[in-house]
């Protein structure tokens, strides 16, 4: 164990892409955690999908040994966090395990929505915040302007902000010195009963369930019998260690330290994040406060393209869930799509990522239905049923409209942060999405707008639209503010006369016609021409509100079949059959899988 005064625990927080993971790279490199040969860019982003998209999804903790200018060697526990709003809960957990934070701000972009959201969380934890103005190498960098922004907007002292270029390795030593001199060491009592916070847990194919802990008081070591206070289970610790970022086994973790343990736990579900770990004998009485539960907010159906893959999908979802307790799933069946799962996610990016991981890591072909939110519906009594209240997760389960007394939908409070010049279009976007403005403040050349919005208007493509109308400059953060009544109807889509339940959606009556028209236009482009013409209709109840027609295919033939070479024609046919397997048949129409998602990106371009 390390003496408390030589420990520093800190998170790196920022808006998305401001350079947290790159800064972490430099800190690891500087302190010799990895050799140059072992180093790669954003080395902590180790999931394929993180590497490909260049974003952090899962927070990562590394221990660094740093010999400071005072001649002492410190144990630094660094936690790199994601910047995207969907993964904000990862940030909040990490913050709970630290005494301070490096607040990274892009010198060219300045303060953005997640900068604010994350720094406020950090302030709530009473953290020491060290501002780091990064990317000073960029020609557009304006560190002094950003320094002023940090002071004006966030209200923290930025006079001694560290200027860095994580990319070119400028200011790294200064960051490390600031960590040591400005962030306070943890407090704790080695002699007190063990109290450790269960910060995170994940499934590792070699180690089984791994638990990230922050020890508050006492000592955790191999062979110790511990209990999870909220979960109520007991376990024997069989491994104690830390990541540097390579796994390093240790004898123990003392007060103030962050590290991992394993205890032959089979399921991640048993190691609930936020739980308190103590000893079976002579343990603590008082549990730590724990974390706020994360609630999925966006739902969609996931169905295997090939019905025979249902079991495989079930297993894969269950396995993915081992590593990501933040999404929910339950079985669902659809007339058109067969058996699948209704899944809940933290946001659209989260949805996209889970879907992509299922497709790639588990080699599944999936159909994703329209994302939707959860509605609360009050039903009147009927001859056979009593009045009741239902929570509607799936538009396909929309009840008989004559029984509906009232529908409530979830609303959010959005904070949008944007350069002045895009404000007009952003206000218009929010207004079009049934938004209610709650505030507007200007700071420097930027505006901060508050809006209350129905979540169902946001799950379509609000975020994409916001990014595109502001050329990527506007940023967005939100929190849920409960349910409100709305005039909502179910809009169904019929292709060649057959209803396609996976495309039905719940919309506000005022936008139904426009949505229906857009949807029909989209589908017209997305469904390939067939050998016959295909009408596409949008309808509410029995009433058609929009229609389009896909004209019949005119030509698809290999002109020359030459010299007895049949193999090429055969390949063509094989390709065609494979393509067909990726489509869903509705009556005689094949709808490509992409159509289900793409049709719902309701951009008004």
């Amino acid at each position, binding site marked *: 164990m390390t003496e408390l005064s030589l420990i520093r625990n800190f998170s790196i927080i920022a808006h998305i892409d401001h350079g947290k993971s790159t800064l972490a790279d430099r800190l690891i490199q500087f302190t010799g955690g990895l050799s140059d040969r072992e180093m790669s860019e954003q080395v902590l982003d180790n999931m394929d999908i993180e590497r490909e998209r260049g974003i952090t999804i899962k927070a990562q903790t590394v221990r660094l040994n740093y010999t400071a200018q005072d001649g002492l060697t410190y144990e630094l526990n660094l936690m790199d966090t994601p910047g995207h709003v969907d993964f904000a809960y990862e940030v909040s957990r990490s913050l709970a395990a630290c005494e301070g934070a490096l607040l990274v701000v892009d010198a060219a972009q300045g303060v953005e929505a997640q900068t604010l959201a994350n720094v406020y969380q950090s302030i709530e934890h009473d953290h020491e915040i060290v501002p780091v103005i990064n990317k000073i190498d960029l020609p557009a960098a304006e560190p002094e302007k950003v320094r002023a922004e940090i002071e004006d907007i966030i209200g923290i002292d930025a006079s001694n902000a560290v200027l860095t270029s994580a990319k070119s390795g400028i200011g790294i030593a200064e960051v490390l010195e600031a960590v040591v001199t400005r962030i306070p060491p943890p407090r704790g009592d080695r002699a007190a009963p063990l109290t450790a916070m269960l910060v995170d847990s994940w499934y590792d194919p070699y180690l089984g369930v791994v638990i990230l802990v922050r020890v508050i008081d006492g000592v955790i070591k191999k062979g110790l019998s511990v209990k999870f206070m909220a979960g109520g289970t007991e376990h024997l610790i069989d491994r104690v260690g830390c990541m540097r970022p390579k796994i390093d086994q240790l004898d123990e973790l003392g007060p103030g330290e962050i590290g991992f343990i394993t205890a032959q736990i089979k399921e991640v579900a048993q190691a609930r994040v936020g739980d308190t770990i103590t000893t079976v004998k002579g343990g603590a009485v008082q549990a730590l406060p724990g974390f706020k539960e994360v609630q999925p907010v966006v739902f969609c159906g996931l169905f295997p393209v090939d019905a025979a893959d249902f079991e495989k999908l079930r297993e894969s979802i269950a396995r993915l869930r081992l590593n990501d307790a933040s999404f929910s799933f339950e079985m669902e069946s659809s007339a058109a799509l067969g058996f699948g799962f209704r899944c809940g996610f933290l946001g659209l990016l989260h949805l996209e990522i889970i879907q992509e991981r299922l497709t790639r890591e588990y080699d599944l072909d999936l159909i994703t239905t329209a994302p939707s939110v959860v509605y609360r519906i009050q039903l009147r009594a009927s001859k056979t049923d009593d009045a009741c209240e239902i929570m509607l997760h799936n538009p396909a389960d929309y009840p008989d409209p004559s029984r509906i007394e009232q529908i409530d939908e979830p609303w959010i409070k959005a904070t949008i942060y944007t350069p002045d010049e895009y404000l007009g279009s952003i206000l218009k976007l929010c207004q079009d999405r049934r938004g209610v403005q709650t505030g507007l403040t200007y700071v420097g050349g930027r505006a901060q707008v508050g809006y209350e919005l129905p979540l169902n208007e946001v799950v379509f493509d609000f975020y994409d639209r916001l990014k595109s109308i502001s050329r990527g400059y506007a940023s967005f953060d939100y929190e849920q503010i409960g349910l409100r009544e709305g005039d909502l109807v179910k809009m169904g889509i019929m292709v060649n006369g057959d209803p396609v339940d996976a495309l039905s959606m719940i919309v506000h009556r005022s936008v139904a016609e426009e949505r229906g028209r857009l949807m029909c236009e989209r589908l017209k482009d997305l469904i390939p021409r067939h*050998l*016959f013409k295909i009408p596409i209709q949008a309808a509410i109840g029995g009433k058609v509100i929009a229609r389009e027609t896909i004209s019949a*295919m005119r030509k698809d033939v290999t002109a020359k079949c*030459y010299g*007895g070479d049949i193999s090429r*024609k055969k390949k063509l*046919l094989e390709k065609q059959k494979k393509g*067909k397997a990726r489509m869903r048949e509705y009556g005689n129409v094949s709808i490509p899988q992409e159509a289900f998602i793409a049709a719902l990106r309701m951009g008004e371009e």
Partner: protein
Amino acid sequence: MARALYIHWPFCLKKCPYCDFNSHVRAGVDAELWQRALLADMRHEAALAGGESLTSIFFGGGTPSLMPPALVAALLAEAERLWGFAPDIEITLEANPSSVEAANFAGLAAAGVNRVSLGLQSLDDSALKFLGRLHDVKEGLKALETGQERFRRVSFDLIYALPGHTPESWSDELDRALGFGTEHLSVYQLTIEPGTRFATDVRAGQFTPLDDDAAADLFALTRDRTAAAGLPAYEISNHARPGAESRHNLTYWRYQDYCGIGPGAHGRRGGMATVRHRKPENWLESIAAKAHGIAEERKLGLAEQASEALLMGLRLGEGIDLAALSRRFGMPPGELIDADRLVFHCGLGLAWQQGSLVGVTEAGMPLLDALLGELVPAALVNA
């Protein structure tokens, strides 16, 4: 027992920008070496698929009209010795309509060639230029005339649905083409094949291929015009006076056995698919080492053979005979074709069925690839 022999001559003076066939430009081809090699390849096939007299031989390429007549004569003499010739054997040679090659026609006819297929490609000079052809219309028509004098049977090729082709311009050109009075005509819509220079040009935005709707109109127009002139379509792109169809090509489409020799040639014999080495040098090497040019020989399963028979057979106006295929491949007719989809597409007027005969209608022909995807059961494709 194969009764059709294909001989590939892989050399061209120049590679055309639309062509994705196995053709190569080489300076100085050693005719003697090639003669010995092709003869060896031929003997190999005859030993495996001989026994019945040949009904057709086809010299394709490349540009087989560049072959010295003596070489053609030697190949034909050997083929006759190995297989024997049916009395009315059809011997076709593909020819470039240039003056140099036309000068060869007499020699080729004397060697035994009795049918020529001329790569005229267009009756418009600017189109010929676009297609990268070395001849112009005048020279081409001269060669056609010589061809008609020298050979009993003459066919020629045209490429249409070029960028800018309109129903008017194409029907004009087609009318002129039909006026030459040949018994056979092949008209191919321009398709942009991967790996060709045209594919690069299209990607670079140099030109845009004619869109499918316009091409479909031209296709229909072609079928009407040729039928009215007494040369109805008997295959997607082939038109003939009844009885004057290319017997050799019918062998492919009716999915009967054929031997293919020379670089890149394909063959089917006794349920076996053969492919020769594509690159001339590799093929020669193989001949030197093994006395044949085969790169791959693969036994086809019955399901795969059945799928090939459908792919080829449905190109023909006459269609396929399910009862005959069922006997041939030992499969119930219900497994040869998707009966539900057939009924559905007959309803749409794209396919027809008469007893055990099944085919594609005039309206269905321009959609054949899509139709095959519907009619050929998945089990045959994935088998």
